[in-house]
Each structure stands twice: as structure tokens, then as C-alpha cells.
């Protein structure tokens, strides 16, 4: 005699999330970096910002730090990100 059992996982995508469209090039773009604010993000993102500008021609890098590194980005940062061409969500420990 067989046994019928149920799926314990989340089924179906109710989140409504979708990937943003990809950039064809970084040259001239405004790129945001949302940092979790831990100490080691500072030198890492300094170097990252420099590399994006120097090697890829990024026009502007906007750096923002979350108020709580374990929580989603603050609403004002998410709102501001609407004006950026790309966002890097970065963590550092």
C-alpha cells in the first residue's frame, strides 16, 4: 500500500519580484553601492569604486549605508536607487 504525502515547501511565486533589465555597458552610468556598513566594506568599496570608474568608465558612484546591516535597505535608499542605472548590494564582514 502506497503513501500519499504533501510538499512542505513554499510553492508558487507570490513575491512579484523580477530581475531588472541588464545594462549593455557601464560607460557613463551612475552606479549605486548599498553597503551593509561593516568596517571592512570601506576599503573594499573604495577600491571597487576606483575600478569601476577607471576601467569601465562609470560616470558616478553613489555610496549609501543601511541603518541596520541585518535588515533590508531603508526606504529612502530604495527610493533614491530609482535614479541610478545599476545597484550593487554589498556586504562586508
Amino acid at each position: 500500500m502506497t503513501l500519499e504525502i504533501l510538499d512542505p515547501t513554499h510553492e508558487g511565486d507570490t513575491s512579484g519580484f523580477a530581475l531588472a533589465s541588464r545594462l549593455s555597458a557601464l560607460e557613463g552610468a551612475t552606479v549605486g553601492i548599498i553597503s551593509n556598513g561593516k568596517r571592512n566594506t570601506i576599503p573594499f568599496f573604495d577600491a571597487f569604486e576606483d575600478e569601476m570608474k577607471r576601467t569601465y568608465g562609470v560616470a558616478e558612484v553613489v555610496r549609501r549605508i543601511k541603518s541596520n546591516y541585518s535588515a533590508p535597505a531603508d526606504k529612502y535608499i530604495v527610493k533614491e536607487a530609482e535614479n541610478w542605472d545599476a545597484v550593487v548590494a554589498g556586504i562586508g564582514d
Partner: protein
Amino acid sequence: MTLSSKRYEVDDILAAQEFYHSRQWTDGLPVVPPTANAVQACLDWAMMPADHLVGIEPVRNRAITAEKLAINAIMAGCLPMHFPVVIAAFTAMLQEPFLVHGATASTGGCAVLVVINGPVREEVGMSSSFNVLGSSDRATTVIGRAIRLILCNLLDVRPGQIDRSTLGHPGKLSYCIAEDEDNSPWNSLAEDQGVPHEASAVTVMAAGAPRQLMNEWTTKPEEILDTFCAEIKANLRHYSIYPGNYAIVIPPQLRTHFDEAGWGRKEIQQYVFENARILRREWADVGKGAVVGRRGDQEYPALPDPEHLLIIAAGGPAGGFGAVIPPWLGHKSKAVTVAIGACLDCEPPAN
């Protein structure tokens, strides 16, 4: 049957184990196969329709339904009478101050401590005595396990996926205790959080592993609490300097000394608030001198205020032991208490 979850057919109970293990739908231990009848019995006991929305995980917008909680509760070994406690615990975890995503995803590796109060403890056969922090009875063990399976299966909090814990701790398998209200001279933890005496309730806390201590050589409350404070200060020095909820577990032998001295929750909270604090420069004593900076004389209390100390009466009758349960990361997550069977978002009656 109104259950909407996908169904699978397997040969027998052993095949069911391998089916779930192979999909990473377990915690590594055997599970009870969640059949439709078993799941429906849980929903019937809680008087909830299968599609009842228990809450929404705020970061990924995931709807948490009663049916999915019941499936995981059955897998953990819950009986229908345990299910309302599971619902209340997860409802509490979905409240914003608990910060469920951060707490369960963090490298910090905490587990969800669930503390049960009220008549439900006796109704479902919970024990608050011997081995209370080490799976003292069936009910607390399976309820705590259900929380972990729900996190794994509904929010993908599996090791290496959403769960990024560097170490974690054994409480992740099950971290649920009932308070020893009957032998305690104090109001219950839930009453301290505003829940009426007659109601049953759960309190959830994003918690590190318990740090056990012992002081059998005094009856003075101050000296007993100095031992608790020393353990809290060790956590401030070794782990995290941020203030937040700390829980302390006080078994009967030590409770007797507090009671005889006329000390209740308020006196204990006040003493710990005043004495569990360190100076930032103490970090240099434990190899963290690099982050002391110019703020060496700055004082860091373990508690933002006395009420952040959760006092839990529990443990076996003999022994001058106690335990400190530290927070995941200070104030980032706050302990939340919810009455079992209460609807948090219900409208009051129109008239």
C-alpha cells in the same frame, strides 16, 4: 479536503524518509510523513482553514499559510494539540521587531528560542523541570523542531542557502522550553509582557546558545546575580558589545534564595541592568584591542533598560545552576510575545 499542496506518492514510510531527505526538506532526522489526514487534523484542532494567512515574510514577500505550517509541524512530530503553539510562535517571528530574515540569515548563527507560558503547558504535557534546556519532553521538543523545519522549507533557511551561520549551535534543532509557573514565586514571563494570567502565550527570541553557570555557595541575591552578570559580561567581551534582550534561566534552588530575600522580577532586572556592563577598553583584554579606538572609557550596558531582561523560571529541583541566553546581536532583533489563539490583525467588533 481543501489542501492545495502538491502531493507525492511513495511506497512506504521508509521511502518517505528518503524522499524528503533527498530534497533537503528535513533537518537530517527522520520525519513523520505528512499525510492529508494528519495535516487536516492539525488545522481542525486550530479551527483554521488551510489557506489561512498566518503572516507574510517581509523581505521576500512570502505568504505563510496555516496548511504549510501544519505540514511541517506534522513532519517534526507534532500532534494536533501542539499546532496552535507552532502558529503562535511563527506569528511572533513574523512581527517586524523580530527581524526574522536578518536573524535567520546572519553569520551570527542564532536559533529561535521559544518560551511557553499559560495553561497550554499542562494541556500538552510540557515539562519545565529536569533537563529543561536539553529537550525535556515531547511537546517542547517537537514544537521547537517544527520552527526549524518551517524556516528551512518555507523560507529556505538551510545551511549554505539563506542560513549563512558560521557556526550555528545545537539549539537550532529545537530550542523550546516551558516556564515553571507552578513552582515560581513570580508572575510569568508572558504576564511580564502584558499577557493576562489566564491566557497561554509564546515568547520568541533570536538567541545564542545557553551559557551555563553555577553558584551554590551563597544565598545572597546580589552574589548570585554577580555570577549571572559575569557570564553576561563575558558575552559582551567575547561576542557582541551591543545591548539587547538577554534571557536568564533560574532553577528552583536559586529561586528560593531570591524569594526568601523578597526579590522579584523587578529587583533582579534592576540589579542586572546596573551591573552587567563593561567598558570598551576591556575588549583589549580579549584580543580585540584593534577596535577599542578612542572610546575606551565608554560604558556598554548589556540591557538598554531593565525590562529587556527576560527572566525564565525553569530547571530541575536540585543544583545551584543557572543559564544566560544571550541575544543574537544586541538590539537588532527584539523578543516578541504573542498570546496563543489571539488574532493580531483582527478588527474589534463593530458594535
